[in-house]
């Protein structure tokens, strides 16, 4: 067993863990944040995407031990109380959500993309979410949602 400390959604968590424990298991089983989903366990589907030190990772392909000291954002860290993030608002508005299982990962990929490049073109948006499989929507409305999120974020920044 080894001791690790991770900062998840702004809060520090220290746990003694088996060094083989994956980051997704740390988040779901140790911290009990269930919004991060496991779809394939091999980094193909992106349902377990979280943001680690500003970059998206498949939390099923990262050992919690490797993530020691890292800052992690999960879907639970996105909204501020009942106040939704503009990406969440945009996804609701355009109807980007069907079964919802890919959505936490999809939203985090979108956030990482827009944090880095708020003016991402359509091609860049498709690239940005290309590690998140969705079987329901055909992506079209998700891409539309990202575009609306861009506008919302830009507008809110102008308002500041």
């Amino acid at each position, binding site marked *: 067993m080894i001791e690790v400390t991770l900062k998840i959604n702004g809060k520090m968590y220290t746990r003694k863990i*088996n*060094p083989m424990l994956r980051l997704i298991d740390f988040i779901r089983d140790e911290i009990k944040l269930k919004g991060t989903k496991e779809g394939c366990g*091999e*980094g193909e589907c992106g349902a377990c995407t979280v943001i680690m030190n500003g970059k998206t990772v498949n939390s099923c392909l*990262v050992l919690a031990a490797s993530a020691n000291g890292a800052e992690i954002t999960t879907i639970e860290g996105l909204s501020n109380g009942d106040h939704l993030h503009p990406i969440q608002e945009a996804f609701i508005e355009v109807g980007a959500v069907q079964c919802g299982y890919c959505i936490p990962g999809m939203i985090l*990929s979108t956030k990482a993309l827009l944090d880095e490049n708020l003016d991402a073109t359509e091609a860049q948006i498709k690239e940005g979410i*290309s*590690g998140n499989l969705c079987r329901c929507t055909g992506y079209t409305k998700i891409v539309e949602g990202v575009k609306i999120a861009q506008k919302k974020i830009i507008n809110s920044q102008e308002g500041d």
Partner: protein
Amino acid sequence: MKLLSFFQPNNIDEAKVLLSKYENSKLLAGGTDLLLDFKKDMNVPQYLIDLSKILELKSIVENESDITIGSMVTFTQVKGNKLIKDNFNSIILCAKSMGSPQIRNVATIGGNIINGAVAADIVPCVISLDGILVFESIDTLREVRCEDYFRNNSIEKIKGNEILTKIIIPKRPWLSGYYKLGKRNSLAIARANTALSLSIEENIIKDLRVCLGAVGKFPFRVNELESRAVGKIVEWLFDDEALNILENTVYESIKERKTMPFKRNAIKGVFKNALLSAVESGGNK
């Protein structure tokens, strides 16, 4: 086997010491492949040495005659790096088409090379750019041309106490290109890929390196095409004479395999697309 300990050394020397101390150990260099093995309970070592905290391995440095890429540089880092962009178009194209954003954020150049999967994306690029791999252990340092590493893999293969620390790629005013044929446009494993670099003067080919991937156990160069091309005009590379060399090469390499009839044909299109990507990048080398 059961994992007993996990280490995160802060520098290369610490890593070398750990590696020599613990016999049954493995290096974690990103882990996008290794964790797949763990999932199947394969290749689980007693000691795991995570290289992700070693800053020395994470930089891309320009020297007088080369650019040196640390083995723990991620594909995302490569993709956005100006030095690479200015010098090695093929590596940029390769990095962009590798895996997915999440995979590129974690997967490293060193990991990709050492894992040496048949369809490893970066290897054909490094070979076609005459890249050199640097291996270090507590008491040794050796440099191996990437091409030799795979051609003589049984001899050159990384030793249990070695770390691939960097990849040295010579700077030269050549064009380079890359194309990967996959079954889909993201998260694709290469059905076949080609990396090439070439030196052209007034439309005459002065030098050429062509490396094919996913059409043999390891990526390999097509020497016959390279030598025949020298002195010819660039357009010759699009002619049947050149393309037939590729077709025969692939045929010889995988004639027993079911995919041979497809790949011997597809390689010509893959090569052409790689060549076009090189020629089109001509404006900025």
